[in-house]
């Protein structure tokens, strides 16, 4: 063996990127303002009256969030907060724009509410920043988190069915307003999975037999995956909520794969998801109708009228073309149902076109990439798994709703994170970003300089 060739790798540049974040944040506030003015000019021939308030409000939220990051997570990732702020701001503009489309069925103003929810979301963001000293504290609540997730998921199934829920039982109605517990579970469940897998990953990864090139886990190690699978099937059956069920099972399989490095878990996961889906789709009329809609989007809906929901959104996307019709100049009232929540992507695609939609998807991809990057950089296994789980759940949610609206997969009701109308969704996603930022703060913080002349990471070159 030749002489060892070793080198030291140190990160370049200042690790504290708060000023970069501030610059991007200013852009992220100005871009939605531009969109707001553009929409107003196109629809009413004048700059909207609430422009100054809106701009000040969003600017204030962004500034407060930024100051919280500066104070409590100085080394956090510089991109996540600006991207979240931009997506949320654009979402508000689109909801406001749809409020103005008077012809829309069941139209009642939602932008005001959404702005309040955004404020609550940013408040929760700051709260998490200030109160969660270290993400590893969450590890103590592994099993409590599992229990809370189960309870939150189970509650809607016991709620009386309401006609206004359109088939899916995912809401808890409390007095005048309703919350979607499934959204909060998106954070709680990854905490449980991360804590559980950290303890069990060696058994899951090592105790296995090799068969046909796949590592088969032992029967007793299959227990958790089967339990989660059954749980997601139960959600599907009792709450007829395909999206949530897919989201949790998918996030679990992703985390299992990351924890064990075994491709066989992905194969198993896909097989089990397919099997469960096939079994349930035969029995549940609701799920079956979704599949029919997906396979034949252009046939007339049974209730009369024109084409079904997916057909409408496909026409909206088609009308947008490459560059879009321009903000405020689309025909969004033709999307008859859930235009501000599940189908907001249809309006975005129509008014911003393929170019805008791709930019939007890139923004989501960047946010997820920053999450995964955080997971790579995190030093503790719990933080790694949690970051993967949270960003995986986020990515899956975008995929499920965007895939549904564009006709890639059967449509399921989910909110597009940060953009679609829905209070639970907005505050959950702000909390999710806050936790990711906390993890990235710990991950990117420079190691304390030891007394002895120890060095940063050493790399041994191939000799």
């Amino acid at each position, binding site marked *: *063996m*030749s*002489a*060892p*060739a*070793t*080198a*030291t*790798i*140190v*990160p*370049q*540049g200042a690790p504290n*990127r708060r000023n*970069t974040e501030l610059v*991007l944040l200013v*852009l*992220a506030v100005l*871009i939605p303002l*531009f*969109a707001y003015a*553009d929409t107003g*000019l*196109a629809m009413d*021939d004048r700059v909207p009256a609430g422009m100054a308030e809106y701009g000040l409000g969003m600017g204030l939220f962004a500034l407060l969030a930024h100051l919280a990051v500066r104070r409590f997570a100085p080394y956090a990732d*510089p*991109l996540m907060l*600006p*991207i979240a702020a*931009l997506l949320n701001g654009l979402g508000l503009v689109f909801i406001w724009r749809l409020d103005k489309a008077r012809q829309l069925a069941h139209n009642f103003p939602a932008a005001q509410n959404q702005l309040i929810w955004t404020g609550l979301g940013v408040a929760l963001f700051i709260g998490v920043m200030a109160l969660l000293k270290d993400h590893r504290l969450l590890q103590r609540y592994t099993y409590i988190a599992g229990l809370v997730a189960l309870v939150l998921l189970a509650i809607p199934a016991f709620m009386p069915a309401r006609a206004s829920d359109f088939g899916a039982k995912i809401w808890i109605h409390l007095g005048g307003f309703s919350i979607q517990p499934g959204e909060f579970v998106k954070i709680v469940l990854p905490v449980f999975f991360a804590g559980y897998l950290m303890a069990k990953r*060696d058994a899951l990864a*090592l105790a296995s037999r090799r068969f046909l090139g796949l590592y088969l886990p032992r029967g007793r190690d299959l227990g958790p995956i089967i339990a989660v699978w059954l749980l997601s099937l139960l959600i599907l059956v009792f709450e007829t909520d395909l999206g949530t069920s897919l989201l949790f099972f998918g996030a679990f399989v992703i985390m299992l794969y990351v924890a064990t490095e075994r491709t066989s878990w992905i194969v198993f996961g896909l097989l089990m998801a397919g099997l469960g889906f096939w079994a349930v789709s035969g029995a549940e009329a609701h799920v079956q109708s979704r599949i029919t809609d997906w396979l034949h989007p252009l046939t007339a809906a049974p209730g009369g009228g024109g084409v079904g929901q997916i057909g409408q959104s496909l026409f909206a996307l088609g009308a947008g073309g490459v*560059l*879009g*019709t*321009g*903000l405020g*100049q689309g025909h969004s009232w033709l999307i008859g149902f859930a235009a501000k929540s599940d189908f907001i992507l249809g309006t975005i695609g129509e008014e*911003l*076109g393929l*170019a*805008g939609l791709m*930019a*939007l998807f*890139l*923004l989501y991809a*960047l946010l997820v*990439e*920053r999450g995964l*990057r955080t997971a790579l950089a995190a030093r503790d296994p719990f933080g790694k798994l949690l970051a993967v789980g949270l960003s995986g759940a986020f990515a899956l949610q975008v995929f499920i709703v965007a895939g549904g609206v564009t006709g890639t997969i059967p449509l399921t009701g989910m909110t597009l994170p940060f953009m679609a109308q829905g209070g639970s969704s907005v505050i959950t996603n702000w909390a999710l970003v806050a936790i990711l930022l906390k993890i990235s703060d710990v991950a990117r913080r420079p190691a304390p300089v030891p007394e002895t*002349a*120890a*060095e940063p*990471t*050493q*790399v*041994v*070159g*191939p*000799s």
Partner: protein
Amino acid sequence: MSELTLTVMRLGFLAVLWLFVIVAVQVIRSDLFGTKVVQRTAAAGRRNGAGAVPTGRQQPPQQREARGQQTQGNGRPRRGGPTQLVVVQGSLAGTTVALQGQTITLGRAHDSTIVLDDDYASSRHARIYPDQTGQWIVEDLQSTNGTYLDRTRLTSPTPLQPGAAIRIGRTVIELRK
């Protein structure tokens, strides 16, 4: 509002949106390419194989050679004595640590000189150190699964001959001249 203004604003908005994406990607660039490979100085030559993943992509080959020669010129505590510790089996196979009279700790703990990614290793498993005469000694630190020198399990600090295999779990380590 005139058609022209609206068209300009429509395209302008898309341009600004993409500008944001591009700026964001520029910020990421520093993460992808933002590591600097520094040549090791002779004095600080320790802790070689601390479980790091060699990327090697950033280092040009001639730089690598230069560094190799430099490391070879490092201090040798005893003429004819072993100069390096080589991991010959296990997940860290190929890792070498230059011996410069310092104590080398082995184990799963993150502050070990060689961080063993081995399920059968204890967090502080064993250490290798030179005694007063410069003879290298291996000592088991009451590990769960034991440290083996050739076939025998260590019970006390034992002098180490070059070429003798130390086995810890699935990892095998040798001293080399």
